[in-house]
């Protein structure tokens, strides 16, 4: 058990170190921080002074360790574009993205899981065929186009929902939320819907595939042979076993949802991390780019680790293998 844990945590640390090294290389070799601070026409002496001040004259390994130390202390440097500390900017933008991602995932689960279960149980029903065809459209249509169409229908033609921004937010001191005002909720509907479409289709197809696999297994056939009612077989026996892999995949999807938010935020001018990242890429603002890279990597590594541990807790076979 402990060996397994240590191996996983070790692997996660190696991944983080690799990503941090990439971020460090970007941070150091793309764009010239001295030019960013002094401008193109600075004198050689002034450049030297700034280089010394930033520690740029020291050996590369020393600088990498200084960089690691800074990051561990939450210091990602100054944004070239905004002139503000990167950490400050990110903390300010984080709530908008988190609220968007969670709302999108909630919608996706509420629609995707029942649709998947239905289309697995009633395989031959015309409704299932429509659902399955719809899900293929759902994974074929780009997220940004869903957003454009939603704006066209609900903001332009029907005029019922706002097409950009986050509405009014309430400042809770450490968190700004749009959940507490009516304009904040109205502004959330379209972005959350457009981020959910792909996830609905994904989750539906996954649940359906897993459920079909489970229904074919022996113990479900036994349950049938025992004469248990269909409803009981499907919901007590089949769904329970379907949900274990589905939960892990949803956990992994949550990370990609935050990444996908980049696109949705750009369509709706949603003031979150994704929009910040895109603006930074367009302006080649490498400090924010490398900070975002490390942040997203950290998020994925933590989620992956949590999923591994969850598997370990759920699946006795893994424990038996690790014990040997």
């Amino acid at each position: 058990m402990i060996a397994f844990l240590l191996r996983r945590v070790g692997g996660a640390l190696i991944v983080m170190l690799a990503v941090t090294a990439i971020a460090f290389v970007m941070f150091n070799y793309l764009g010239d921080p001295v030019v960013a601070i002094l401008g193109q026409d600075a004198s050689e002496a002034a450049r030297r002074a700034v280089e010394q001040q930033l520690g740029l004259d020291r050996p590369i390994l020393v600088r990498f360790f200084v960089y690691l130390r800074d990051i561990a202390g939450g210091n990602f440097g100054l944004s070239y574009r905004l002139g503000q500390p990167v950490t400050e900017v990110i903390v300010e933008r984080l709530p908008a993205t988190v609220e968007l991602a969670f709302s999108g995932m909630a919608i996706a689960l509420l629609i995707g899981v029942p649709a998947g279960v239905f289309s697995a149980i009633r395989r031959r029903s015309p409704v299932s065929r429509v659902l399955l065809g719809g899900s293929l459209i759902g994974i074929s249509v780009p997220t940004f186009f869903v957003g454009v169409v939603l704006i066209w229908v609900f903001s332009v033609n029907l005029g019922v929902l706002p097409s950009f921004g986050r509405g009014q937010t309430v400042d809770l001191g450490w968190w700004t939320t749009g959940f507490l005002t009516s304009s904040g909720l109205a502004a959330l509907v379209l972005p959350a819907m457009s981020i959910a479409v792909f996830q609905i289709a994904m989750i539906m197809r996954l649940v359906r595939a897993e459920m079909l696999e489970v229904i074919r297994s022996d113990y479900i056939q036994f349950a049938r042979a025992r004469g248990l009612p269909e409803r009981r077989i499907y919901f007590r026996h089949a769904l329970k076993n379907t949900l274990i892999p589905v939960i892990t995949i949803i956990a992994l999807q949550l990370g990609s949802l935050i990444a996908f938010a980049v696109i949705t935020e750009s369509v709706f001018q949603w003031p979150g991390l994704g929009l910040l990242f895109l603006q930074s890429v367009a302006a080649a603002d490498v400090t924010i780019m490398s900070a975002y890279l490390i942040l997203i990597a950290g998020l994925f590594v933590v989620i992956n680790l949590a999923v591994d541990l969850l598997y370990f807790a759920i699946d006795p076979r893994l424990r038996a293998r690790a014990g040997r």
Partner: protein
Amino acid sequence: MSDPNHPDPATNAEPKTAPGGAGRILRALRSASIVRSLRKDWVAMLALAVLLILMFAAALPNLLAPYRVFDLTQIQLMNAFRPPAWLDGGSAEFLLGTDDQGRDILSAIIYGLRVSVTVGLGGVALAVVIGVTIGLIAGYAGGFIDSLLMRVADVQLTFPAILIAVMIDGVSRAILGNAGRDNAAVIVLIIAIGLSGWVEYARAVRGATMVERHRDYVASAQLSRVGTASILFNHILPNVLTAVLVIGTIHLGVAILIEATLSFVGLGIPPTQPSLGTLIRVGNNYILSGEWWIAIMPGFALLVLVLAINLLGDFLRDALNPRLK
């Protein structure tokens, strides 16, 4: 066996006999079984027909597009903002309407299709080359090289492809500057898509190679002192191509979506030689003022293209998977 977490049924699609060169895959495709399953599946037939038409349009836009829309001398501003032909104010001259500069939307879509398909195919090709090479080496060498390469693949797999592509684009901007990057946009995007998409191929090919390398024909090639590179590419590669074909079809849809997405957010193809994504980006500026067709029409074309590719990918996966028969 291949990685148990990612079983790839397509690798076992057909009985492995002696290697027969790269033409094998074509022969397999022409073989009766796949054509028979295609005939039974009218959705796949329709998808194939639509895809062939779109590919034809992308290959020869001059033949099909009514106007040379990106020739500056042909632009007539008085034709701007015409709606599609079936709406009030539309005319048969411009079937799908015109944009803000009086350019025919249908023609713009056909030329945009060409850019989208070029970038998509180029990206897939690059991903195939990188992924197949790494997969062959990892699967054949085993040991330390294998675990190192697969570790790299794992790290990359933790990031969504679209983020990696955006990141590569950002790096290209920092290196080339914004103007230089825009001139090389098609190449930058192909590299971004190729580098973000090789992992799936590498995993599948590695799994298949690990099976293949213990077969008799490999041993006999080794005994007759055939070089390692020759064994990998001439003997093993033809036997793992089915898996590559299935992954490649699905990846093409993803690649085209990545290109469209990057172009839509302004990090892809610049508006001077627009792709479908760029057209949607430009049209998006006129959605709020009611000229919806400028964005919706190219978006619909993109949807049809990717849907046809995905339907065909689903069909290939099922048709080449013996377990489902």
